């Protein structure tokens, strides 16, 4: 009888240790950081691209005004036009506050999106949005500095689509990263985030 109690006691101790170890790894101090990366400050970014007007651009030029950056491609039928529409509506809602705001769309599809293609595409949205086009090496560098991912996915018919980070990145006027607006966030969540980024020092 005592030995039965003893083995039951040992089993309970063993299970308790296992649970504690699991907690430590998953939720406790042993928890690994989220893989999601945070962009470096715009002042520390060094890459060149061409904007939709055909002029050379550099992230340093954005410093001095609050900045909104997002990634996409013009062959994207659902997420990208929806994000561009959201951004256009936020800009209208912000009124004068949006006058001192850089808004940059960086294409993740340099193969199909040249300067003219991006210019034509953006002509359908709020003119505050500027398009940036880089070559593959420039895009890789930008993606690293912004901490975003993009991946070409073949659709099996000779065409392809690109899975990419869909959030909108906000930077303060001094170039420091402030916060992101995720794809599914509502206008009620997005507008205060942009305002805070514009006005905080």
């Amino acid at each position, binding site marked *: 009888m005592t030995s039965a109690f003893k083995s039951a006691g040992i089993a309970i101790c063993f299970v308790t240790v296992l649970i504690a170890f699991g907690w430590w790894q998953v939720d406790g101090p042993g928890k690994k950081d989220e893989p999601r990366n945070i962009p470096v400050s715009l002042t520390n970014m060094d890459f060149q691209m061409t904007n939709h007007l055909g002029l050379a651009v550099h992230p340093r030029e954005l410093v001095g005004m609050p900045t909104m950056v997002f990634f996409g491609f013009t062959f994207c039928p659902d997420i990208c036009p929806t994000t561009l529409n959201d951004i256009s509506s936020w800009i209208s809602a912000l009124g004068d506050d949006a006058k001192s705001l850089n808004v940059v769309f960086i294409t993740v599809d340099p193969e199909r999106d040249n300067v003219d293609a991006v210019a034509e595409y953006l002509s*359908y949205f709020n003119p505050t949005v500027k398009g940036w086009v880089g070559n593959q090496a420039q895009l890789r560098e930008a993606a690293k500095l912004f901490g975003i991912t993009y991946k070409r996915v073949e659709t099996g018919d000779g065409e392809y689509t690109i899975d990419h980070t869909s959030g909108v990145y906000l930077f303060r006027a001094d170039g420091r990263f402030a916060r992101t607006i995720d794809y599914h966030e509502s206008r009620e969540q997005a507008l205060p985030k942009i305002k805070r980024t514009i006005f905080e020092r």
Partner: protein
Amino acid sequence: MRYLSLNARVIATFIAIMLPSVLSAQEVIQSELVQVSSSWARASVGTMRPTAAYLTVVNTGEQMITITGVVSEIAGRSSIHETSVSAEGVGTMKPVKEVHLSPGGTLEFKPGSYHIMLMELNEPLLEGASTSMSLMFEDGSQKLFSVPILSIGARSADAK
């Protein structure tokens, strides 16, 4: 002879009355039980880039209905896709082979979710115009519906 023909007439009448109800009990035509509303397509940039169409479907019947595809007069290829965004914020689009509608169920095709991808456009989708498409069902039936074309920046059927 007269007796026989009367009998035959009774049988024929019986079959004529019973046949449709027997058939309908076995074969529900899926397209007839589906209601389509709030359809719209996003205007395209030329014909080179794909665009998307959206709608709301309701299963008014008492059986499961399966949508197996879509055909469109304006696109060489059309298919149902679903957009999803991962925990890391990465957006993905995947083709969907079948969409199931439970009895009484409603499914909204909307930006960031289910949508109809329109590829290989025969002509550009121009804002203010309208086009038509058909949903195809498991039983081979089709449901034709008209699709107003809204601006590239539209977000729902009510948007300008």
